Every structure is written in structure tokens, then in C-alpha cells.
């Protein structure tokens, strides 16, 4: 069945001329997220521009806001690495007092969200600020090189999780911040991938439309960090969905018993093997000499699906 393509606004808030790498996954996130936000704001408040952005330190911040230039056509503020959610809380409070209608978009990478920024994120969600927190997940600290984060998947090479005689690479399972966010029983939590841009767009729109906090975790491949050619970004992001490695879901009000899934095979059997996803990326190259590590990764993913309430088969 053909996917019905929702219209995507032609309005741009992420201007050309930013300094991101060719094929940058997170750059696509910025573009789509702000477009979706603008459409939601237009529908909700009659003003497509009724939003402001609070950005954590990270690749997307440094490539977009090099003084005296800016890639942002929306009001935008960067404070530090771990406090995008807290800064967004302040902006939202100020807007409330100013009687300004709209919503705040907080953006952070996996480092600024899953690790150093987790506390500020939790505080913001728990206080029910009218903020969408967007975590662009490129699965390592890409701004400082390629160091592991708690969102780095099992088996991945990074400069601080190098494979070696006594190491298979990253040796801990990935931390799924979306589930932590959902545990706050906030109105809306979703995972997305730029491999399905329309799904991501719809979810960002929905996140921006709800009253109260929302959290979206989007998979965004990093060309240098994942060791992929620039033209493979979308293909890799798509394969993450198709192999079952990246579950697409929505959780509303923390209701883990009624998770909505997208792109889930009816019979629970994913058709493409995870190896297809791994093979495209230099960061997993070493795993092909260690099939037990690939099996461990599969086990972890099956366990994740089981926690989400689905029994799956991974070829």
C-alpha cells in the first residue's frame, strides 16, 4: 500500500548556508522539525511563526550559529550543553507572562539529552512546561569527535569504545530516553527516524499541537561518526526501521499498555536482517568477525520489543 504523503510546508526556518557536513542527518531533522512546528503553530494559533527554539550545545548548534551568521529564521537561544530543557522552561514561562501565544522547541543531541541533560529534561517534563523536546539521536558525541554516549548502540565503534583484543566496541545496551520521557506520563512521546520523514513530520506536528510537554527521539545518522558515505544517510535511517532495530512508536500520557506502532510488520517478522543495516556502516565493521556480538545486539533489540509489548522475529 502506498504511503499517503502529507503535504510539507514550503516555509523555511533552517536556512541554507549552515556548516553541517554533506549528508548530515541531524541537519535534515532541523529542517523538517521546524517546518512541522510551523504548520502546527499555524493550525493552532493562526501564526506559523509562533515558536522559539532553545538549543543545547552540540553539532547542530555550532554549525548553525557561528557569529555573525545564523541559519535560524526563528527566535533562537543557546545557553549550554546540559540545559536546553531548563532554558526552554524559562522561555516558556516568560512567554506565558508576556501573553505570547506559541510553543517552545528545545533541541538537544543524544549527549545533551541522554547523558548530561537528562536531569534538566526530567525537570522540564515533570513541571509540565509547554515545550517539545526534540532529541536528535546520532548515537555518540559527534560534536567533540566520536565518543560514546549512553545512546550509543551495543557493538558500535567510537573513539572511546574502540573494539580491540578485549573489547567488541560499545559494551552496554542503548539507553532509550523516549521510554524515560514516557515514564513522566506526559501527553506525548514518540520515536522517529529521518528514514521515514513523513512519519517524523507528522509526529513533530502532533508533539507541537498537544498542550503540555512532548518528547520526540529521532534517529539521525552522522556521516563521519557512522562511517557512511554522504549519500547513504537516508538509506541507513530507513534500514534501521526495516530491520526492526529502530522501533517507531508513540506513547500518550505514559500509557505503556496502548503504545501505537508504525511500520510494524503484522506478523512481527522483520524481513530484512540487521546485518543489512550494520554492513553499510564503518562503525560496525568489526562485528562481522564477531557473530556472537551481532547475536547479542539482536537479543537486546528483541528484548526492547518485548518490553514494548511485541514479540518479534529478526532474521
Amino acid at each position: 500500500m502506498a504511503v499517503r504523503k502529507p503535504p510539507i510546508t514550503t516555509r523555511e526556518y533552517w536556512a541554507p548556508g549552515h556548516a553541517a557536513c554533506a549528508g548530515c542527518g541531524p541537519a535534515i531533522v532541523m529542517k523538517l522539525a521546524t517546518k512541522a512546528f510551523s504548520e502546527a503553530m499555524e493550525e493552532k494559533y493562526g501564526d506559523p511563526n509562533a515558536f522559539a527554539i532553545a538549543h543545547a550545545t552540540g553539532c547542530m548548534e555550532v554549525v548553525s550559529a557561528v557569529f555573525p551568521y545564523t541559519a535560524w529564521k526563528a527566535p533562537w537561544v543557546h545557553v549550554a550543553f546540559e540545559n536546553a530543557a531548563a532554558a526552554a522552561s524559562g522561555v516558556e514561562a516568560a512567554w506565558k507572562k508576556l501573553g505570547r501565544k506559541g510553543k517552545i522547541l528545545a533541541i538537544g543531541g543524544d549527549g545533551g539529552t541522554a547523558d548530561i541533560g537528562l536531569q534538566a529534561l526530567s525537570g522540564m517534563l515533570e513541571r509540565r512546561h509547554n515545550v517539545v523536546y526534540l532529541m536528535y539521536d546520532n548515537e555518540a558525541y559527534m560534536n567533540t569527535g566520536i565518543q560514546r554516549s549512553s545512546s550509543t548502540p551495543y557493538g558500535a565503534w567510537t573513539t572511546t569504545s574502540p573494539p580491540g583484543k578485549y573489547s567488541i566496541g560499545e559494551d552496554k545496551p542503548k539507553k532509550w530516553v523516549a521510554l524515560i520521557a514516557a515514564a513522566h506520563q506526559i501527553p506525548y512521546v514518540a520515536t522517529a527516524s529521518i528514514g521515514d520523514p513523513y512519519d517524523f513530520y507528522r509526529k513533530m506536528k502532533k508533539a507541537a499541537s498537544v498542550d503540555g510537554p512532548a518528547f520526540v527521539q529521532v534517529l539521525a545518522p552522522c556521516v563521519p561518526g557512522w562511517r557512511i558515505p554522504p549519500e547513504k544517510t537516508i538509506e541507513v535511517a530507513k534500514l534501521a526501521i526495516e530491520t526492526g532495530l529502530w522501533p517507531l512508536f508513540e506513547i500518550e500520557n505514559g500509557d505503556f499498555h496502548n503504545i501505537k506502532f508504525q511500520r510494524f510488520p503484522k506478523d512481527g517478522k522483520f524481513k530484512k536482517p540487521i546485518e543489512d543495516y550494520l554492513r553499510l556502516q564503518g562503525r560496525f565493521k568489526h562485528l562481522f568477525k564477531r557473530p556472537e556480538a551481532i547475536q547479542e545486539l539482536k537479543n537486546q533489540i528483541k528484548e526492547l520489543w518485548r518490553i514494548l509489548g511485541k514479540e518479534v522475529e529478526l532474521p
Partner: protein
Amino acid sequence: MPMRKVMKGNEAAAWAAKLAKPKVVAAFPITPSTLVPEKISEFVADGEMDAEFIKVESEHSAISACVGASAAGVRTFTATASQGLALMHEVLFIAAGMRLPIVMAIGNRALSAPINIWNDWQDTISERDTGWMQFYAENNQEALDLILIAFKVAEDERVLLPAMVGFDAFILTHTVEPVEIPDQEVVDEFLGEYVPKHAYLDPARPITQGALGFPAHYMEARYTVWEAMENARKVIKEVFDEFEKKFGRRYHMIEEYKTDDAEIILLTMGSLAGTLKEFVDKKREEGVKIGAAKMTVYRPFPIEEIRALAKKAKVLAILEKDISFGIGGAVFADTSRALINEKEKPIVLDFILGLGGRDVTFENLEEIVEISKKALEGEKVEEVNWIGLRKEIL
């Protein structure tokens, strides 16, 4: 008519916040300033204060939320102390670098380790290089007044820097004193509404705040903070004048007490100044020519005022509740900088005392005078002296 109420220093700070009408307050409780957010939440709960009060999960988020709110263009206030202020440390630089006129009340408290909730100035002194202005209150009235003054100076377009107002833990935060609460209309007249021209997050005129500064621009950005702090000297004096006209109370960068014919001048900050004045009276009766001076503004450092003060003294004894390990007290180091190129300068001695809530007694002050007298007579004395130290337990 101004109202007189007996209140703790913390309440005075909360009253100042109420009078200044910030639109956003973000705070986390910490001893000894816990009562400040508590009182503010009462004001908000009772509808006496029209502010968004963000009950954050840490001081780091408190100051981050304040930066967000201030960047969105509203008057913003917070309060903290000690470890809480230390947790804010990295964001303090950012608030100043982004030129956001946030005002913060600090119940000056010692830093760990060992953990200690009592008074000294190590918390604010440790933040002296962040680009925040620093005021120190002698009593609860000053805590209230200086917060209003801090807002006025911070928001002045020649300055646009954040400011912290310190008042000593427990000695002021938890001690009740009569405080005159000014009329709201007069405060409104004094402060006016805050309308920023440089910081706002308005979709109608989007701007980028908190950008990345390459080597080609970073130094210039830091220079503007330096320049703003230099401008603050003049602006603070103007605001002191205006404050006196409106509220009848006079403030000085450095307030002097019986210094005109003094041979030894004891310089300090905060609540210790009250003790010093009494001590000076006592010593004057004994015929000892000493005077006292209180530094109300520590950043920008009152260089000219220090020079003028130094001209009057043969020994300038600095009494401070902080220590910069490896050099001595911070006020001593700063004072030395102010005097280094002066042709005639007094002997400058440093006295570290009262750390972590240790009482400063008249006996301690006598000891300081004795050491100062020795120096005056040409005897060699230590430049940095720890006073009231219990050597027997070392």
C-alpha cells in the same frame, strides 16, 4: 507611606523581589536562602506577586531558566547560596556574556568540604570573575535596597550585566531586624518597566542569541563585558544618588566611618561592618586612631575609592571571610592591585577570619589592631593572617 516591618534578611530579599515585579522567578531551595523562594511562592500563591515561579530541580536549572526567561526579554530573579551558586557557575559566565540583567540574592555561605551551612563569602567571592556585579549588604535593609539598586544598574543600557547581592548567612538571612518597605509606586517609578532592546525571543523579529564566537570575535565579545563593568562604576553612583533622592537612604561604593584622622583603617564587607563600627567607637574612646570602611560594591572593584581610602591610612587592614589559596584573601589581592602604582601607599595587611560561621569577636579585632600597630611601628608582620584560628586542634 513606606511600611516598617520586622523581618529576616531572606524576607527582605523576597520583598525586594516582589517590589521589583520580575515576570519570572526560578529557584531551588538551599540553606540559608530557602526562605527567599518560600516567601516568593507565598506571594505568588496569594496573588500579591504576578510572576511565573518555576520550581526547578536544581540550581543549574534555576539559572538556566533565568537565562531563558531573560533572553525572552523579561525581568528575572533568583536566589541561592554556597553549593547552589557553585552549581550555577558555568551559566553565570553565560548570563554575563549574553548581557542578561538577571538579579540574584545570595545568603553568603561557606563551601564544602567540610560541609558547612554558616556564613562566609567564599561562594560569591569564587564567582568574582564571571562578569556579575557584586553587592554586599550590611543589614536586612541593605539587602532589600541593594536588590532594587541591582536591578536598576543591571538593566541600564550602559551596563546590561547580571548582579548578585550577598547578605550573610544566618547573621542576616535568619535574623529579624526592622526593615522599611518602600511604597510600590516609588519603586515602580525608580525601576520602570524592563523593555530590552537586545534580548527577546520574538517570532515577529527573530534573532539568534548565544551564538558561537570564533577566535575572530570572542575577545571582542569578552571586551564588551569588561567595558560594561567599567561603565557600571559610573552608573552605580548615579543610581545611588537617585536611590537617595527617592528613598532617603545613602549608599557608597565604600562607606567610611571615622577614617579622616585614622592611622589604621579596617576595611571589610557585609554584616561585619556593623561590628567594626562599634569596635571603632570603643577604640576611639581609648584614644586609638582607627577607622572603619565597608565595601558595598565588590564588582566592579572600587579602585578609585580604595585609593582615596588608602591615602588616609598608614595601615589598611583588610578583614575578609574568604580565601584564595596560594595568595591570600581576594579583597586583599584586589586592593593590592588598586594600590600597586600609587606613589604613597599604606601598609596593606590581610586578615582571614570568620570562615564557616566562626564568630568574629572584639578580641579578634584587638589582635588585628595589635598586628597593625606593630606594622605601623616598622616591625615585620605577616601579610596574610588567620585570625581566631584554633591552633590547638590542628
